[in-house]
């Protein structure tokens, strides 16, 4: 796809995720928004790996079992970054879901406006 379109999609995902965190009232929906924002950031990082076609050759992802000279590769560094970012996102989500289970046990509701015992 044309690179500017992917940047816009990634930006749209991040904004949609942050919008959901700010405006939704159910705790699970807030966590879904967090996950969508993480996905948007990972998409942004992957999109930056693309290298333009030089001399008509189209870059491929660097998995090669028969490497010929002159093959153009996309940059593998953001793929490692995205791997780490996905792992971090999954860990935070697992911790958040464990805390949500306990909150439901104590408060009986998942509505953010009613989980408000700390104030002042």
């Amino acid at each position, binding site marked *: 796809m044309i690179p500017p379109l992917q940047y816009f999609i990634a930006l749209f995902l991040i904004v949609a995720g942050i919008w959901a965190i700010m405006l939704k009232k159910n705790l699970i929906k807030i966590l879904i928004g967090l996950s969508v924002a993480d996905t948007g950031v990972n998409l942004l990082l992957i999109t930056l790996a693309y290298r333009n076609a030089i001399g008509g050759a189209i870059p491929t992802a660097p998995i090669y*079992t028969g490497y010929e000279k002159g093959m153009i590769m996309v940059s593998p560094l953001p793929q490692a970054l995205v791997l780490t970012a*996905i*792992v971090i996102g999954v860990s935070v989500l697992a911790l958040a*879901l*464990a805390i949500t*289970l306990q909150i439901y046990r104590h408060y009986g509701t998942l509505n953010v406006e009613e989980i408000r015992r700390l104030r002042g």
Partner: protein
Amino acid sequence: MGRNDIEKGGMSLIVRTIASILLPFILTFGIYVVIHGHLTPGGGFQGGVVLASAALVVLVSFGYRLAENMYKKYKTLYSPLEALGGILFIIAAAIGFSVAFFYNYLWTSRTLFGGTPGTLWSGGMLPIMNIAVGLKVATGFAGVLALFFIYTYRKSEGEKP
């Protein structure tokens, strides 16, 4: 297991049979993804998640009683296995200590995992680190999924979680 009646929270006989047949394939595929991390897409984290999904298949199809019995038998084993994976990773990183910390000693001195690039026995320290991370991720996720499952069933049955 294998009885005709439906266990508490489990699924029917067909699902249980297919799950037990599929289980070795899932485990083999997970170990394959972990070990071939330096050749094909995959590696520690992805293979670990596949291995944990094998645990999830067992949990969902065999029901709550089996999960609880397994959990009671192996409860003390989740945390130490996970920490063992972490210790293996640090030891693998510390072997090349003479030059610097993450030095790929096995590759440049062409012992154990030295070989031509593109074959399985190559990459130096990488397969060892992949195995360590795969162990850690698999046990971590399997433990978390088992705990969520047991907690939810205990709560819906009214027992104290």
